[in-house]
């Protein structure tokens, strides 16, 4: 199936730990994104990569580090996790030349920091 897939779907971890979330898309898109959805369902962009190059970096703590090994993958590494990092993280992708088509979203990773 063509899709944006994220792993893991659920992640429960203790404060202070380091964790990673992986995202892969097989749609042939050249742009990928990370969004954070808080407990009030508000969606905010964190990062965007185009062809492995960082193009959007919103005001995000530097404990968050995205990595794009190729244009089909965008991973999110979080150091020294804090309670406030608990949220659902969504990966998405789009094609630059056809951005008006919209994003394709993954199903999300629910991160709970205890």
């Amino acid at each position, binding site marked *: 199936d063509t899709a*944006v897939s994220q792993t893991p779907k659920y992640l429960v971890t203790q404060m202070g730990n380091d964790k990673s979330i992986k995202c892969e898309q097989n749609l042939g898109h050249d*742009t990928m994104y990370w969004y954070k959805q808080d407990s*009030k*369902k*508000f*969606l*905010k*962009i964190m990062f*965007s990569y*185009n062809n492995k190059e960082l*193009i*959007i970096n919103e005001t995000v703590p530097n404990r968050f580090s995205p990595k794009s090994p190729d244009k089909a993958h965008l991973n999110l590494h979080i150091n020294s996790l804090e309670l406030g990092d608990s949220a659902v993280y*969504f990966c*998405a992708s*789009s094609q*630059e030349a056809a*951005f*008006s*088509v*919209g*994003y394709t*979203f*993954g*199903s*999300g990773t629910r991160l709970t920091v205890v």
Partner: protein
Amino acid sequence: AQSVTQLDSQVPVFEEAPVELRCNYSSSVSVYLFWYVQYPNQGLQLLLKYLSGSTLVKGINGFEAEFNKSQTSFHLRKPSVHISDTAEYFCAVSEQGFQKLVFGTGTRLLVSP
């Protein structure tokens, strides 16, 4: 910078009733407008979009939206809702030429029998 306001955090309706979910945006340039739906514990799915041309756009599942430039609005409507339409609905805007979607705070549509 663009922003989106969804005035209603929750809209309760009875099955088969019509519904309108409101969305207003602000931007100094031309925009693309989108509505996404999020079913419980799932990702976001594109319902419909406005790029240019006809101001009335039709989407999936019987939804439609009307772009009103003078009122900077893009309200979502459905003439008759089903229980299965219960979900969170997000309006989003992107300034043309930029690949960044800015979302509203969402409206929870609750359809009851």
